[in-house]
Every structure is written in structure tokens, then in C-alpha cells.
């Protein structure tokens, strides 16, 4: 590909995501890399792979927006935008009718409410606590000696309605052990963990209006989370084609739109 491209890079606490759009705003490349200790390096790696996939050289980047907790570490970016705005933008592109975006990341959960025009109406993040985040699940999966994928598979087999009594990562870990001792099925316990996240999310929703979309790495990899959210929120949850890339996609769209605005402004000036 030889035309101009636009990149969005979302540097999260666990993973760094990159999306590349062509000059028409179409998604032509993407990549996920582990964030590790060096956010700048992770961003470069994700960008390099996404460009490779798009078949575009680095010189073709006409705009780049970074987002996520490591957004300041991306030297290629010409602008930083928060992940709140970017996730909302990405989700809205896939589902224009969506009014609530639930982004569950490694270290935080964001609830974003949009107006009918797609503008940011309100947002909330978890307080300084891991309850309801990807770290909550990772930590307990580690304690149980299973992978996140195995935890998800177990949960999807559950037919029970187990609910955990605590949102706290530490106390839920203890509760899981107690329930195993009581002889509860590990499938039901696993599903209870996803319900715990869904219930925490339900507390953060100020209004239960309009279609809901889930984004982020946990939504991307855990079908049980979507099932738990639909059950607790009593509504269908739209899962975008690339949930983990929603923030990077939104960032890339913002980069693309900024250039479009610039071109439009330049056109007006030229016309006098």
C-alpha cells in the first residue's frame, strides 16, 4: 500500500494495541504486543507489525494518536487522547446505535455513556481498587492454577447461578477456596467470578438506557463475561469484531478525522 495511513496506538497496562487505517478510514492493519516494562518499545513493536500487515512503510504515516495509560510514551504520536474518548469513538464506529460502552481492561473498568448524537455524556472508572477488572480474574485464575482461557471454558459450562459475596480480589480468592471445599462445581464457581465483574459493572452504570457494547481484552477473550453481563444487565451486549482494539481503532479514527478536518479547512482557505 502506498497511500497515506493513520495509526492509533493504545498502550494499556497489560497489552499494547495498534490499528492502522488507510486514507479512506478503512482498517488495514492491526497488532497486539505485551506492554512489558518499556511502553515506548511496545508501542514501536505494535506499530511496526501493524504497518507490516497493512503493507505500508513508516513514512506513509500521516497521523498518529496514542491512548491508554502509556500514551505519553509513544514518540511517533502527534497527539494524545484518553482511552475514554478513544474507546467510545471505536465502539461507536462499529455500532452507531450504542449508548453505553463497557471497557474492561487490565487495571481498570470504564463505563462510558454516549448521547444519542454519539457524544460523551458521562463516564466512570473504578476507584483505586482492582475489583471488576481484568487483574481480578487473572489473579484468581493464577491462584486456581488455570489460564484465563480455561477459566472461561469452565464458566461457559456452568448451569448454576453462583454469585460471589465479595468484589475484592483477595477475599474472593479465599471465598473460591471455601466453595471448592464445600464441593461446589468449579464450572459454577468460575461463572460466579464473571458475575462478580458484571455486578460491579452494573453498579457503575448511571442509567440503563440504550444498547450496550463491551470492549477491552477481557471482553475479547472471555465469552463468559458477555454472558454474565447480559444476564446481570438484562440486555443484549454487542461485542465488536475486535473488542481489544476498540481504543486503538478509536485513536486511529481520531487521527484520520483530524487530517480530514485539516484538509477541509485548507480547502476553505484556498477557496477564499
Amino acid at each position, binding site marked *: 500500500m502506498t497511500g497515506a495511513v493513520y495509526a492509533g496506538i493504545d498502550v494499556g497496562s497489560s497489552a499494547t494495541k495498534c490499528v492502522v487505517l488507510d486514507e479512506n478510514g478503512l482498517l488495514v492493519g492491526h497488532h497486539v504486543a505485551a506492554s512489558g516494562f518499556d511502553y515506548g518499545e511496545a508501542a514501536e513493536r505494535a506499530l511496526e507489525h501493524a504497518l507490516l500487515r497493512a503493507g505500508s512503510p513508516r513514512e506513509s504515516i500521516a497521523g498518529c494518536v496514542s491512548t491508554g*495509560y502509556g500514551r505519553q510514551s509513544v514518540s511517533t504520536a502527534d497527539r494524545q*487522547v*484518553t*482511552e*475514554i*474518548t478513544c474507546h467510545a469513538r471505536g465502539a461507536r464506529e462499529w455500532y452507531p446505535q450504542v449508548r453505553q460502552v463497557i471497557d474492561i481492561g487490565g487495571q*481498570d473498568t470504564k463505563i462510558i455513556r454516549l448521547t444519542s448524537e454519539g*457524544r*460523551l455524556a*458521562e*463516564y*466512570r*472508572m473504578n*476507584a*483505586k481498587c482492582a475489583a471488576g477488572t481484568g487483574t481480578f480474574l487473572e489473579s484468581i485464575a493464577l491462584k486456581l492454577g488455570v489460564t484465563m482461557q480455561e477459566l472461561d471454558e469452565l464458566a461457559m459450562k456452568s448451569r448454576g447461578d453462583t454469585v460471589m459475596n465479595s468484589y475484592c480480589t483477595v477475599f474472593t480468592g479465599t471465598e473460591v477456596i471455601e466453595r471448592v471445599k464445600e464441593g461446589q462445581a468449579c464450572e459454577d464457581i468460575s461463572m460466579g467470578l464473571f458475575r462478580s465483574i458484571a455486578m460491579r459493572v452494573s453498579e457503575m452504570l*448511571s442509567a440503563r438506557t440504550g444498547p450496550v457494547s463491551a470492549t477491552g481484552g477481557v471482553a475479547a477473550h472471555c465469552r463468559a463475561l458477555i454472558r454474565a453481563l447480559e444476564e446481570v444487565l438484562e440486555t443484549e451486549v454487542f461485542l465488536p469484531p475486535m473488542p481489544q482494539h476498540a481504543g486503538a481503532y478509536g485513536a486511529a479514527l481520531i487521527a484520520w478525522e483530524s487530517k480530514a478536518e485539516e484538509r477541509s479547512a485548507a480547502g476553505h482557505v484556498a477557496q477564499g
Partner: protein
Amino acid sequence: MSTAVKRVEIKSQKKLRELLREHFVDLDAAARDPDRKVAWCTSVGPCEILTALGFEVYFPENHGALLGARKVSHRLIPRAVGLGYSAESCSYMTSDIGASLADASPLKEAFGISGPPKPDLLVYNTNQCREVQEWWSYFGRRSGAPVMGVTPPPHLGTVTAEHVGFVRGLLVKLIADIEVAFGRKLSEDRLEEVVAQSSRASRLWREVLNTARSRPAPISFFDGVIHMAPVILLRGSHRAIEYYEALRAEMKERVARGIGAVPDERFRVYWEGMPIWPKVRELSEKFFDLSTAVAASTYCNSWAFEEYDGGDPLAWMARISTEVFINRDEATKEAFLGEMFERFSIDGAIFHNARTCPNNTNSRFGMPQRIRERYELPVLVIDGDLSDVRFFSTAQTMTNIEAFIEQLEDRAR
């Protein structure tokens, strides 16, 4: 911090440092002088009575704020928690108790004194919270000094003549108790004089804050939390009046010359709740970089009282201390905030959910949501604490604030 636009410092800051030095050095001397008595008082407590009775007045909440601002609270709080004070109770109280146990005080390095002055008397008003009663009681037990207090009816809507009469009665009893305990007699003329001076300083402070109605705002919340020291610590004295006359003149000059606290001001935000003392500088720089002025706050306005127009000074004291925002019901608070948003042309409001200060946190009963709908104003709630930095996440808060400004930008399009 942005280098493109320079912050124009407030010149009165130098005078403020001198004033505070004089104040604390004198308090230290008073605590050592057997002929002088030191009374501890809450920040919206009956300090005018204490001054009129000849006490030197010390305000421990200022020390709590100082411990927070110097980022040492979280190291001192565990000592108070060990004594049975919950880590989720007032971090001013727990850090001050901890500081006392550790014999630590920023006053030592700042002013070369031995620390907070030992109390001869401790006087509180629970108009702000009941925690002050427990805080004062701790130091009363330790020092052996008497603890006396005023307990007005809380969470009021309209403050009636009956409420004022009741609180006035409490003040009369307080005076009688102090007179008996210390063998002193209150001069009504002196009280009237102190109240008049207190009211004058308070009025000038209000006028200083009101200059922020101009665009750009010449003074921000982050300046306000520093420059409000005299209206608390020196209330009832000529020094406070002189200070605010000069500060008001400086603010008027800044307005005339178009000097803003944030020079390239794009948005104007309201701060509801306590400051986050350990992060005041970082937050100030974040808003500066975002070209956003925190133009008004409930906190700084808490010492901008209704004016004393002569008459019964005790009735004035009863009224202003009962009418304070923190002592009002939700509906009254919401109406006050609405007036402030309009008066200061506010684009968005930030509520600070201070973990250890439920009484001065207004995001726990749905107020931000009601404000958002009633005034059609973007509202953000941030989690933190007045002093205990362990309840604050820098990355989360800064992202929240940046997203809030993105929301304001989107709205402005």
C-alpha cells in the same frame, strides 16, 4: 508543565509567608509564656470569642493540611490507627495525632519553632463534622486541657431564627464556662470589635474570590487554598484585613491587565469538596497544561461569610457558623452550587470524593447526577483524599481529568 505560556506568580505570596511566620513564631512564644494562654479552635469555630477573651488561637486543621501538603500524612497515620482510630476516619485527625506521637511537624522546619503550641483550652464546633470533637478530645486527654464545644443542629435547609437562637445559647454557655475555668471576663465591646474585623476580613476574601468571575480568572482554586490562610488563622485581626486589601488590589490589577491564573484559559471548572493536599501542585499543573482554570470552589468560599452589620455579635457568630455549606441539606447545597456555576460562568464541575471526609464529600447521595441533569453541566467525580495519598491514584485521576476536558472540548464544538 507547559513552557509555551508562563504562569504569572501572585506577588502577595511573599507577604503571606511573612505573615504566617510572624503568626506561628508568636504562637510558639505564647505557648512558652505562663502569662499567655493558647486555645485550639476549629476552622469555623467561635474563634472571635477566644480572641476577645485574650487567648492566642491555633487552628489544628491547618496543621492537618500542612502534613498533607508536605506528603507526610500517610507515614504518620498508622500511629493513630494503632491507637484505634480508623484509617478511614478523618486523615487530618489521624495524621495530626500521628504527628504528635512522632513529634513531627512541618512547622519546625518552616518557622523554626518547636511545633504546634500546647493547648490550654480546646474549643470545637461540630458544624463541620463530629470528627473534630474526637480529635480535640484526644489532645484534651493528652494535655489535660479542658475541651469545650458547640454542637449546632446539622444538615439544615433554611436556617431559622430558632436555630440561631439555640446556637447563640450554646455560645453564651461556652463563654460562661471559659470565664469560670480561666477567671476571665468577656468584654462585649471587644467581642464586637473582633467580630467586625472578622467580618471585614471575610468580606474582603469574598471580594478576592469574586475577581475570578473575570475571564481569564486572575486567581484559581489552587491559589485560593494558599491565600485563604489568613481568613482562618488571623480572622478577627487587622493583619488579615490589611493582607486581603492588598490581595484584592493585586487581583483587580491582574483583571485590568488581563493576567490569568491560567493565561490561555479555555475552560472554567468548579471544584466541589476538599483539596487533595499532597497533589495540589500536580493538579494545578495538569489544569494549567489543559488551559483550564478551576475558577471557583465551595472550599475557598467556606470562609466568605455574610457580613456583620452591627447589632448582636453572638447572633452573627451563631448564624454564620450554622449557615456554612457543610452544615446544610442536599437541596440547599445544590441551589448554592447552581448559583456559583452561573456567577463564575462554569463549564463543568468536579466533585472530589474524599475517602476519609464523608462530611465534606457531596458525591455520595446522587448529587453529581442531579447537578448534571438540573444544570445540564458535565460533572466528574474523582476519588482521592484530603491528606492520605494512599487513596489516590495519579494515573487514574489524570486520565479522568483529561477525558473531562476532552468532553468539554467536544461540547464546545
